[in-house]
Structures are given as C-alpha cells and as structure tokens.
C-alpha cells in the first residue's frame, strides 16, 4: 500500500514537473510573440520614404507639366499629292 502510494506520488510529481516546463515555455513564448507582433505594427507607423518619393514625383509631373505627352503628332494631316 505504501509502495503504491509512493509510485502514484512520484508520477504526480513527474507530471507536475513536465507541465511546469511546458507552461514555462508557453509563458516565455507569449511575450515574445507579443513583441514580434508589436514590431510588425510599428513598421506601419514608420514613414514610407520610397512611396513618398514616388507620390512627390507624380504630383511634380502634374504641377510642372513635365510628363512626356503621349500624342506628339496625332493631328498631323496626311500629306496630299497635288495634281
């Protein structure tokens, strides 16, 4: 009876120990995950310099009319042969 009790006690201790290790891993992983997620969210509030340059160029083109016109000779009348 005493032996059986001790075996059960040992098993319970082993399970508790195992559970402790797993739980500790979970509690270590959670803050890490939270940190990683918050880092991803922070990326969004950094200024997107390349996108801003692209946007600036687009607006500058329109304000200064520096775009290349895409119809340079559209209205040129066809040459007619005189008789």
């Amino acid at each position, binding site marked *: 009876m005493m032996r059986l009790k001790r075996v059960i006690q040992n098993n319970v201790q082993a*399970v508790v120990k195992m559970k402790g290790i797993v739980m500790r891993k*979970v509690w270590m*992983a959670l803050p890490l*995950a939270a940190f990683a997620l918050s880092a991803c969210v922070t*990326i969004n509030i950094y200024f997107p*310099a390349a996108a801003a340059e692209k946007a*600036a160029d687009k*607006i500058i083109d329109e304000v200064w009319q520096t775009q290349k016109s895409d119809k340079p000779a559209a209205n040129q009348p066809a040459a007619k042969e005189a008789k």
Partner: protein
Amino acid sequence: MKTNEVSFCKNLFKFIVSLLMFTVALNASAVDLEVNTPGVNAIKQSMQVRHAQLAGHYASGAVGLTADGLIVLRDAGAVPLAQRQAVNALVAADNQDRIALYAEIANANGHPEWQAEIRSTFAQRWIQRAQPGWWVQSGGGWVRK
C-alpha cells in the same frame, strides 16, 4: 495531459505565424501613399495653373526653390518694379498651396505627423527635378541648375 499541452503549443505557434503573415500582408498592401483625394487634386490644379505664371520667374532667377519645400523671391532685381508685387503674391499663394499640399497628403494617409517628412521629401524632389537654369537652395547657398 502532456500531448494536450504540446498540441496547444503547436496551435499557438501556428496562430502566431499566421498573425505575423497577416500583418506582413497588411504592410505590403500599404506601401503606396494615397494622393488621389479631392483635397490634393484641388491644390494640384491650383498650383498647375499658377505655374504657368511662375515658370518665367524660375527661369530668370527671380524665384528659387528653397531647401524646405517652398519657393522664394530670391532676386527682386530680376523682376520689373511694376510686376514685383504680383510676383510676391504668386510666391505667397504658391507657398500656401505647398504647405496645404504636404498637410493634405499626410492627413489623407491617416498620419498627420508625417507632414514634415513629406515636406522634406518634396523639397528634395522639387530641387532634383528643377529645370536647367532654375535656382535652387543647396547646402545653405543658391545654385543654378
């Protein structure tokens, strides 16, 4: 009991990884700045019309592009006295539009605090793309392109 914990951990890991991928996808879709709003378009239009009057003054050197994204009457002597007031008004109106433009872009993208960075990005681009003969502020002094 043990297998439950392990599968819980696995699921948690999968959940975190999928969340990470989701946020990365969100970031990737937000790389372009929104500049096609009624406010931005109105300012752009007004600046475009004004540019027809200002272009000659850029070329003569009377008006130059500053390092902080604005324009200034840098050589009043290059403008006939009779026109000087009109040019001053053009410069003031254009600067008003420029400041409004930078603020409008920042607001349109939900980040009013980006205004200063948008302004300095524009400053660099205006200067870099200025036409030959125009005067731009560079390194504290005026340079003719």
